[in-house]
């Protein structure tokens, strides 16, 4: 494997992704990420000069909606997904900036 993921990187990626990994999981993730980067390196060997970067796999563009209100109030159904609700709102752990 050409790409070696450091402990710091895996720690940082874990923080960004809000994942708490065990030591074994960290080792596995380092290996997986390394081989993914190896694969990208392989792709980089191809000469892609003059090729437009692809941004979507389907040859479709300009899919739009008209600006017309079609949704009504379905608060009860939406809040049925909430682990906890209060006063018509989702309850989450206290979050202050």
């Amino acid at each position: 494997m050409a790409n070696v993921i450091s402990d710091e990187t895996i720690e940082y990626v874990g923080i960004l992704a809000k994942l708490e990994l065990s030591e074994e999981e960290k080792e596995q993730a380092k290996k997986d990420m390394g081989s993914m980067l190896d694969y990208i390196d392989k792709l980089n060997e191809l000469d892609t000069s003059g090729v437009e970067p692809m941004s979507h796999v389907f040859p479709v563009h300009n899919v739009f909606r008209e600006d017309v209100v079609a949704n009504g109030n379905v608060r009860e159904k939406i809040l049925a997904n909430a682990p906890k609700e209060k006063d018509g709102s989702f309850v989450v752990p206290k979050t202050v900036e």
Partner: protein
Amino acid sequence: MEKQYETVIGLEVHVELATKTKIFCSCSTEFGGAPNTHTCPVCTGMPGSLPVLNKQVVEYAIAVGLATNCSITQYCKFDRKNYFYPDNPQNYQISQLYLPICRNGGVEIETKDGEKKVVGIHEIHMEEDAGKLIHDEWEDASLVDFNRSGVPLIEIVSEPDMRSADEVIAYLEKLRMIIQYLGASDCKLQEGSMRADVNLSIREVGAETFGTRTEMKNLNSFKAIARAIEGERERQIDLLESGKAVIQETRRWDDNKETSYAMRSKEDAQDYRYFPEPDLVPIIISDEWIEEIRSRQPELRTEKLERYKTEYDIPQYDAEILTSHKKLADIFEATVALGKKPKEVSNWLMVETMRLLKEHDLEPSDLTFAPENLAKLIDLIEKGAINRTTAKEVFEKVFAENADPEVYVEENGLKIEADDGALKAIIESIVAANPQSVADYKAGKKKAIGFLVGQTMKAMKGKADPGTVNKMLTEILDS
């Protein structure tokens, strides 16, 4: 010698677009609904839901881009910006990083000493707004309302071209005017439909490179922006003068305490792990589409100002005030279209309307009266049915309640007595009751007539035209 510092400012301005529905779903964008009543699986980030782009968002963004001299990105797409925060139900925001819809524009502002200067616009991109967090005072919890989640925004990113709070405000006013004229947003800072984040750094005068910048948030009035810029400039100078470094960070301005505090160290763009949004297909904007939008662009302020001067013969100063806000200009044109004299309409808007707005701490966008009612009021004056003092009183009702002046004047008995006989009788009794003033007048003190006019108006309870009273009094006294 003391070091001289230059302030370098760039702005990120978020503008809520005036669409009826959200950017990716058909929920209403109406402000002020009960929590979560304007939500659906898309804007609450439910698994399996898919976004569909609102065409009007693209059209407003193009319109703003054209009006700010940007080039339109004809192959344009959305990207995912990943971060965790409870107001962001998908754990990503759909935004644009790689191919923003508008680039390389700029607007001209006038600096304090009257010089013209162009503030560059780096890019304008489309994105979705987040939900709102309300902190529960009773429990250790926060409540999330997703009504605002998915409301369309454009973010206008300027170049670091501004050097003072005055320039920043001139730039914001210019943007606001353009966007309001386009009808793309009402741009109310207090209500958050226009939000400005200030990126500020300082450097020694003459330096080539920029200093480390901070980003300041939570600025919801022009005054707060000016104070925050002054405060941050001072803070950074103090740091540098005492040999410390400015840290790149996001700071939150507290306008009550007039101080700012660090929110979190600013994450680098790569930490957001942007990638092309797979749930939305690219947007291809044809030349025809751009031209169609260009041809629909309304008359903007500069053109309107010139037209007012030539078409309505309105002086420069008046035209500037009338066109300073689209709402004022709209009322002006609609009232003039009802056949009223432009100068007369302009006076009511410039003097009484502006006075009442200031008195009630309102903005022109808050005006609710119908042009028809202003036209009726002007009619009443022209017909001589009410005098100007009464008219001002009636106008306050028009301003506050959109009252119909004809009905109001009728119901409150404010009409001038057209019966000359009754007026003449009153004047004669006033003359008889005030021999001293009459004697003064006859002795050459012409000013004494003012007192008699006043007494007559009082006796008539204001329902007389002072000009007519003056004329009749003179006739009686001189006879």
